[in-house]
């Protein structure tokens, strides 16, 4: 009783003073951002600027090989497009094919691991990542052996009359696309797995409960819910595949399969034509940026939870 009276006469407890709005803003977030910003500046912004500057240079008349001067010649870009548009188109075609193939292989694989594998899940995931323990180049060279004359594939294909007697598999577009597909498959599988694993099995049950057969449930429920994984996986496959030159070098080895990465490599290291190599790099970057932007907008992933 005494307590009640005291509380009543004491009136309402004063609210704690609101925090002063004049407090200095904490600098911590900016300090935390600093290392990342420095890194981006030194290793992205500066090189890109240098690359852009190089792309506008021209050869010094009468100068030595590899001697260039800044003339702000934007026509370099037109020259490059005129000369190498075939390789550009081929690069995007190969990368696109490899991306579609990787998606077709990785989706069922990721679906199985995420929804059905049970206690084998982790082992299967390790197997997906396991190729990374060997070097990218070594693995590609290994594929040359597998697809070569002495490998197991060619005799089988010949025996089945799937290819003519004298034909080979290496040094062809098929080999390059196969190599790209193989090398970037984990980049497709892992994001797909991550998004499929998150899908609550109850959504799939709800689809069945609402008169959708398993196929319709997949098309109307599972596939839309896994779109973030599809978008991430295709980007992680397409972008590096479009700029790749290892597969075309080791599994293609002929002008018919040259990709834009090979052109950049030979312009830069062999012909020592820095401006052309720089314009190629810039064009590749810009093209990928435009493609990706359009793709992400169309896929509409931002609407997904």
């Amino acid at each position, binding site marked *: 009783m005494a307590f009640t009276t005291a509380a009543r006469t004491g009136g309402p407890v004063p609210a704690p003073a609101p925090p002063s709005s004049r407090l200095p803003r904490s600098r911590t977030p900016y300090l935390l951002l600093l290392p990342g910003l420095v890194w981006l500046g030194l290793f992205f912004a500066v090189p890109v600027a240098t690359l852009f500057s190089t792309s506008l240079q021209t050869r010094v008349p009468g100068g030595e090989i590899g001697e260039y001067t800044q003339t702000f010649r934007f026509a370099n870009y037109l020259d490059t497009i005129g000369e190498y548009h075939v390789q550009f188109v081929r690069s995007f075609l190969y990368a696109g094919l490899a991306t579609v193939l990787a998606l077709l292989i990785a989706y069922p694989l990721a679906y199985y691991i995420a929804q059905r594998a049970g206690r084998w899940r982790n082992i299967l995931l390790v197997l997906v990542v396991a190729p990374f323990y060997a070097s990218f180049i070594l693995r590609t060279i290994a594929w040359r052996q597998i697809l070569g004359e002495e490998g197991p594939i060619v005799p089988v294909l010949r025996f089945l009359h799937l290819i003519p007697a004298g034909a080979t598999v290496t040094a062809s577009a098929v080999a390059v696309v196969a190599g790209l597909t193989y090398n970037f498959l984990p980049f497709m599988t892992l994001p797909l797995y991550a998004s499929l694993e998150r899908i609550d099995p*109850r959504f799939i*049950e*709800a689809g069945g*409960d*609402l*008169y959708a057969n398993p196929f*319709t449930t997949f098309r109307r429920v599972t596939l839309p819910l896994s779109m973030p994984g599809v978008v991430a996986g295709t980007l992680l496959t397409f972008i590096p595949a479009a700029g790749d030159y290892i597969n075309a070098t080791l599994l293609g080895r002929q002008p018919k399969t040259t990709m834009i990465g090979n052109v950049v490599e030979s312009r830069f290291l062999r012909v020592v034509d820095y401006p052309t190599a720089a314009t190629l790099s810039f064009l590749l970057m810009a093209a990928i940026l435009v493609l990706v932007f359009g793709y992400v907008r169309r896929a509409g992933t931002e*609407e997904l*939870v």
Partner: protein
Amino acid sequence: MAGALLSDHPTGDLRLDRLVKRFGAFVAVDDVSLTVPKGSFFALLGPSGCGKTTTLRMIAGLEEPTAGSIHLGTLDITSAKPYRRPVNTVFQNYALFPHLDVFENVAFGLRRRRISRVREQVMAALDLVEMTHLARRRPAQLSGGQQQRIALARALVNQPRVLLLDEPLGALDLKLRRQMQLELKRIQVEVGITFVHVTHDQEEAMTMADTVAVMNQGRIEQFGPPTELYGAPRTTFVANFLGQSNLVPGRRVSGGGSHLIPVDCNGQTVLLPDDRCMTSADQVLVGVRPEKVHLLPAGMNPPTGHNRLVGGRVADASFTGVSTQYLVAMPWGQDLTVFAQNVGRGGPVPVGAAVTLGWEPEHTFGLEGETGTPAGRDARVTARMR
């Protein structure tokens, strides 16, 4: 043939016949037979792990029975695919499709069956749950209660023969749950569809359902109208899970009136109507609900013909507003519970006071004595805390 399931609009009762579901060595549902009359509100009540959800999932077609059959009217739906059954489910946590807005969620079932006038029916279903204004929202933008209503509309719009509800109110706070209980009851009466409602909340089951089936360890312990289950529980599990019970062990003695059995409880004789006694053995658990018991000062007797237990001492009294809950220590070492309505007559009985307990014989029930008192009591406590 299977397509006929949806188009024929089979009517009639839902019948489960000797239904069994095993997961490896574990028997989740053990020989369950039930008939749910058409148009009734049926509750499957039990603690978690008692098999109620598995039973529901078998009716939905999400789980295949190990043995037994499920009929809807004359139709055998035991092994029909879920998408071919005229049965819809309101899932626990609702399972609303996050990539579709409210309208498309509700329209999902209609579109799959290529039914015309989707818009009209979806809006009618949303109107029923008072959610038309949120038709273009995504599920993530809705509160729990709103999601619950949408899940209900998404199932009801298909006009199923049976609507299954799997703990639909479990994720809501107490006040909202009470409100939704009444709402669900209203909707069920309005649409006249058979509702099978799974819950661990005994109050929820009793508030809404016409018939309650209490499940325990894969079996149906008892089913019937809530008043019957509460007034005359058949097992100690039901007596303790559905509300509270005082259960005093006793032994049948000779004598007594026409329909009353005298039972000796630690030297004191109480009477038990023979139609409310579930055992023919000598050992009997004498049961009475706490609110049926009156507290009298020691030395005072209840009206003639009433049961009486003397020698009690008030060990604890907790005031809950509308009533006071007393814990009375009996001479044989058992604590009995008494709820006294605070009607304003007589003051509270102080702790330590010597008291006599009295109640009418018609409120007494007799249970099999072997199982012991605690069955179901722990289950109810855990179920409440979840």
